């Protein structure tokens, strides 16, 4: 996209949200480097790729052949929806962690918005992962909640990020809110993530790849599954990034309005 076109689009956006009267303070509120960072996010190709990949995941995931395995049977198709949720969630929480660190270094509200919204989107994906997982568990292990270590860890991670939002909402001052919640985010992420990866490997688990169970990779992630699984991972991750991008742009406008009300 040419620079002129970009400016035109920005102008259009301003008019749409009735921001024309607002003086341009973006240079001081948001450092220039940050704006350059998400230049590629303004392009269209990855959004189209996201839609195509997810359509392929849904259509191919339900219609293409899967290996016939006992117990799992057709529920193995949930692999494209359940496992991919966790991948997206971990990535987005990692983004949140990185932007919290960046906020502590820069004190720029732009970074705080990304950290907060990434936690928000990650929480959405975590909730979806829990729901898809418990439905899968109902039809393979027998009950919606099986007290499996990985289920416990997922629930703990969910609670940690819920606490993050409770903490955020307890402040009225936005600078203080941003700084203290960034500190909590870094603290919680660094403590919880190694534990989440280590505990399921130490105790017995119903999940594949833990406690003596063979992993999916070893025998049943065959070429039929891979053909859909890898595009599905990419598609869901792109959807998460897209959601994050939309939320961040929305919050950016809200913040501008707040600062110049």
């Amino acid at each position: 996209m040419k620079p002129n076109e970009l400016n035109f689009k920005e102008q259009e956006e301003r008019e749409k949200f009735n921001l024309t009267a607002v003086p341009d303070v973006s240079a001081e509120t948001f450092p220039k480097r940050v704006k350059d960072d998400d230049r590629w996010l303004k392009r269209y190709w990855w959004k189209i790729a996201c839609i195509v990949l997810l359509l392929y995941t849904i259509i191919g995931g339900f219609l293409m052949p899967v290996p016939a395995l006992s117990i799992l049977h057709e529920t193995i198709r949930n692999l494209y929806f359940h496992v991919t949720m966790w991948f997206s969630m971990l990535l987005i929480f990692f983004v949140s962690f990185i932007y919290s660190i960046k906020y502590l270094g820069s004190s720029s509200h732009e970074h705080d918005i990304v950290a907060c919204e990434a936690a928000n989107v990650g929480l959405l994906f975590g909730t979806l992962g829990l729901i898809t997982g418990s439905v899968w568990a109902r039809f393979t292990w027998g009950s919606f909640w099986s007290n499996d270590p990985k289920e416990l860890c997922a629930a703990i991670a969910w609670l940690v990020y819920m606490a993050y939002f409770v903490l955020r909402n307890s402040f009225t001052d936005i600078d203080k809110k941003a700084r203290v919640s960034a500190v909590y985010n870094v603290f919680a992420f660094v403590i919880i993530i190694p534990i989440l990866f280590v505990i399921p490997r130490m105790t017995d688990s119903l999940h594949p790849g833990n406690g003596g169970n063979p992993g999916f990779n070893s025998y049943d992630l065959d070429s039929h599954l891979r053909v859909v699984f890898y595009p599905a991972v990419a598609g869901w991750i792109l959807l998460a990034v897209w959601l994050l991008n939309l939320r961040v742009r929305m919050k950016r406008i809200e913040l501008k309005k707040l600062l110049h009300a």
Partner: protein
Amino acid sequence: MTSSFRQIILLAGKELKLEWRQKYALYGILLYVISTIFVIYIAVHTPESHVWNALFWIVQLFITVNTVARSFLQEGQGRMLYFYSLAGPREFIIAKLIYNVILMCILSIISLILYAVLLGNPVINGLFYAGMVCLGGMSLALIFTMLSAIAARAGQNAALMAIMGFPLVIPVLLLLVNVTKTAFIDVYQPGLGRMILMLTGLDILVIALSLVLFPFLWKS
């Protein structure tokens, strides 16, 4: 280096002295410990070993929340400003950590003795159990010290500490319950060393995080 070391010693000493002079707080916690254990005694008398263990760690958790929460919540805005002009943030948080660890070790041992006297003692390997109780009390104290500093910034909100802290300590308690379970049986447990190593590693991680992150809380 030597001056910051002296600052740490002085600050930690000041906390301990303050605790000793304002004995009402210490007695308050002791009374809390005694009454909690007494209620458990009335409710279950002599429980089976795994129930005994689980209840003990729940008591420990609530003692930590009540004890360590005060460490920052009791400091007023003015006094923080005074410390700010005297010492660096790293020295201050190290002093707080040392003080809380000492306090929790003492309280853990007291509650263990009381607990064993009232509820019976199914522990076979007593010394190991006492050591693990101290290590566990230390881990809990370290995590809750930092959380208390965060909660103090959020307007002295004690409920917030429980909300932030419980999800973080669930995995720690899970590890502790698994480690201490081995004190009830005479059989060799594989993987015990790894769990203890993980707990120690977690403690070191929490200390490092506190050192890095506390200066950001201190600034405001």
